[in-house]
């Protein structure tokens, strides 16, 4: 793998080489290596390994005429060629109505501790053992069949802007998804674990396996649930997907293109007064931690929702100017379809305030209540109004007189804004969630939501 100095030299060359040719440029080089172990039926299916060294360029040709490119680089010549190609391409592009400048001041950045596992390279040897321990834990809790994936990676990056800012970052991360089954298709459970230092988390990974196994066993005998209105207890996994969608939508670009229900909600009470949510790029163990954004603006903690009131959106320089406010240090190059990225604001780690209720307290409820442990396939009828549905998968329980009875085959068909407003209790078990259905790392406790609509197949 190329060394960090080599990577830095590509970025320096890109900046120097383009300096006299364009109004401004931001170059970011990154070298990443990642591995994954996928397993099913209690055995490892495949071990994978990825290595990349890439250079990202954001060019400001003149005024609001901008362009982006990304490619692999192996030499200084490659870096120069990338600059030449990007300038040639970008010069033909029209001016963007969604660009109003980038960070122009130089800053010093905070030191993010705990974001890098110095022993990450050794983890490749250990990983199969961790996986097998998680499988064993699931089986010992009663699972018959266990599937999952453990992914771990490191990334070293260096960025430099022709306006002055520059910085480097080292990051490691891992995420484990364990799913345990009985022999039957219907009785399954899931456990998730993620963080920045895999070497230190064998206990967490084993616990994820055990949880998956335990839930799959508790799901045995699940019966068809009845459609109707219920209070729902959403595990952190489900809450992060369904309720996390509201603070995730506190994004000016999402509003502009019709993907957010929050366009006219600033300053309004959208949740209960005991609920606060912060975009926090500094929270320990957060997968999206950063001390500066793509433009070089220092990151900050941004209170998106305070006491249930929508208080702020995330911003980069462009959207901050549009909204006559300051950047929240949230600028990213975000993927838009095949081979295209765009300079946009985006969330870092979304952090819900932890509650003070134990799980036992949450299930003490006089109304019909269902506990949903996992979900997938969330789709919207309308992103602006929030009507959606999602499918609970894995163990689900009807709670009656404090007892959990396994049920199956129901769908949450409701409205995210309404459910967010109907949050009525927060658990004290906050954890970070990141998996297939939750792309923004979300710190979330178990949450109870009143009066939700559950539907089922009619035939």
């Amino acid at each position: 793998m190329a060394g960090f100095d080599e990577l830095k030299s590509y970025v320096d060359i890109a900046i120097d080489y383009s300096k006299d040719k364009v109004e401004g440029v931001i170059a970011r080089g990154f070298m990443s290596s990642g591995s994954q172990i996928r397993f099913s039926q209690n055995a490892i299916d495949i071990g994978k390994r990825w290595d990349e060294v890439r250079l990202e360029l954001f060019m400001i040709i003149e005024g609001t005429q901008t362009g982006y490119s990304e490619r692999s680089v192996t030499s200084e010549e490659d870096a120069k060629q990338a600059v030449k190609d990007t300038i040639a391409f970008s010069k033909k592009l029209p001016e963007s109505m969604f660009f109003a400048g980038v960070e122009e001041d130089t800053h010093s950045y905070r030191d993010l501790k705990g974001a890098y596992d110095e022993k990450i390279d050794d983890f490749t040897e250990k990983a199969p053992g961790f996986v097998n321990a998680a499988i064993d834990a699931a089986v010992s809790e009663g699972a018959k069949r266990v599937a999952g994936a453990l992914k771990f990676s490191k990334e070293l990056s260096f960025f430099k802007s022709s306006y002055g800012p520059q910085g480097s970052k080292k990051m490691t991360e891992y995420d484990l998804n364990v799913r345990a089954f009985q022999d039957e298709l219907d009785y399954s459970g899931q456990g998730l674990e993620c963080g920045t230092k895999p070497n230190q988390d064998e206990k967490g990974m084993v616990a994820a396996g055990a949880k998956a196994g335990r839930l799959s066993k508790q799901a045995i005998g699940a019966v068809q649930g009845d459609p109707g209105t219920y209070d729902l207890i959403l595990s952190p996994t489900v809450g992060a997907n369904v309720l996390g969608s509201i603070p995730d939508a506190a994004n000016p670009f999402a509003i502009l293109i019709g993907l957010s229900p929050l366009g006219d909600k600033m300053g309004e009470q959208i949740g209960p007064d005991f609920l606060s949510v912060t975009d926090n790029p500094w929270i320990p163990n957060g997968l999206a931690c950063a001390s500066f954004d793509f433009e070089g603006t220092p990151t900050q903690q941004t209170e998106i929702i305070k006491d249930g009131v929508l208080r702020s959106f995330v911003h980069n320089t462009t959207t901050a100017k549009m909204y006559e406010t300051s950047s929240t240090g949230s600028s990213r190059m975000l993927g838009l379809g095949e081979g295209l990225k765009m300079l946009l604001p985006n969330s870092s780690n979304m952090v819900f305030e932890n509650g003070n209720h134990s799980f036992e307290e949450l299930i003490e409820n006089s109304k019909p209540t269902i506990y949903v442990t996992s979900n997938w396939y969330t789709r919207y009828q309308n992103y602006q109004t929030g009507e959606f549905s999602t499918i609970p998968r894995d163990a689900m329980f009807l709670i009656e007189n404090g007892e959990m009875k396994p049920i199956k085959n129901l769908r949450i068909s409701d409205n995210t804004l309404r459910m967010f407003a109907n949050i009525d209790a927060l658990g004290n078990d906050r954890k970070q969630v990141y998996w297939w259905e939750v792309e923004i790392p979300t710190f979330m406790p178990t949450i109870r939501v009143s009066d939700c609509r559950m539907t089922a197949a009619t035939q």
Partner: protein
Amino acid sequence: MKDGKDLAEYCIEYGRSLGGDYVEARFVKQITRGLAYRNGEPVSGGMQPTTGIGVRILVDGNMGFGSFDRLEKTIAEETINAAFKMAKAAKRKDKIDLGEPVSNKAKWSVDLKQRLANVDLDTLMATATEMNEKMQGLAQYTMLFNPYEIDKFLVTSEGTEIDAFTSYIRIFLLLTAKGKTGSEQRMIDMTQCGGWERIKEGRVIENVEDEVDRLKKTAEKAEKVESLMDQPIDMIVGPEVAGIIAHENVGHPSEGDRIMGREGAQAGESFWRDLKLGESRVGSDAVTVSEDPTIPNTGGFYLYDDEGVKSRKRVLIKSGIINEPLLNREFGVKFGMESNGSSRSVAYNREPLIRMANTYFEPGDHSFDELVEDIKLGVYMRSFMEWNIDDRRYQSKYSGAESYLIKDGEITDIMVRRPVLETTSVGLLSAVDAVTKNLRFDFPGTCGKSDPMQGVPVYAGGGDIRFRGIRLGGVG
């Protein structure tokens, strides 16, 4: 391409020297350009040339995969070493067996007249402007426009050598219309496979205009028709809805890796697991669903798959009985069959997996009018918006976008707002009593599977389909 090919061939040699029983290398070179527009105005443009090699290595029945993007020998060796070690560490008791060796040599390309690489940016932008003009009058509209070409060279230790060239124009629209009943949204994929001529041949501009008009009409006119909830009704769905049903309720559960549990933690398993091929009935006699990668100018077109197996049509459900699963080499062996050419990989850095290509209801012998004429009370759901299905592919939901009330054998002018078809797969397919003759692939899409996610272009379709005695899951 020469350097990448040579290095791919070296990967085979190197993998074999380590002790790999089977080694496969895919060199992929992709060039993508992208434009994004919001309400007709440009918001972003970019380009992304990507090259890299992905290697699979089978070591004593254990599989390893490695990929790298810098085409250097030492990096290739480091990556294959890592993949080899990871494979050995797997220590499977149940060894992976790829079956009989495959040694195909071929060169194929999608059908095309004008290479996308030869279309200049001004032409791309002029076409994008034309499409944007058709969207005027909507409350909000966003378009992503991404033409790209892929050169792929697959080489294996069994002697396979396949040169492939594919070319796509990805077009994605996010549309919001406001009308009397509030706002209605649709996400529409209009991806074309082939050269630049597909814009014209695929009637892309006309289709954008048509879809925009239909969405505006829906937002303006659709109403809650509560009486439809009082009793079971008959439904007709158009080829777009037929396509998503073929894809979700039939294509996905037919994937061999799902059936055997390999996708358990991610995309899930399949209700086909507990059924018998050639015996178990999941639909009425009127239901025959096929999968065919050999149809030119479709998102799922390929002549050889990513394991070098020649592609062919597969009949998944024949007259209501499950007939054939989608298989790659590994699962071909596990099923006691052989690969039917279903292995696809979306990029050099992704392992090949069992994927769909083009999935559709085989045409029946009815005309559309014949479907309508003996319906007393029903809904014609021409298109859909929200949808989902559980991970065994058994409980599905489709919410109608453009939908009309059918009364006394006629499609009325009354538009039904968001009728919900919420059923099981067997409940749905068993209710089919007729399919029209007109096979159309009205549902281009990107099918997601696996971890890391692989989104592959697919098409889906069918004729118009009639379902008898459906109890709606909701309206409005």
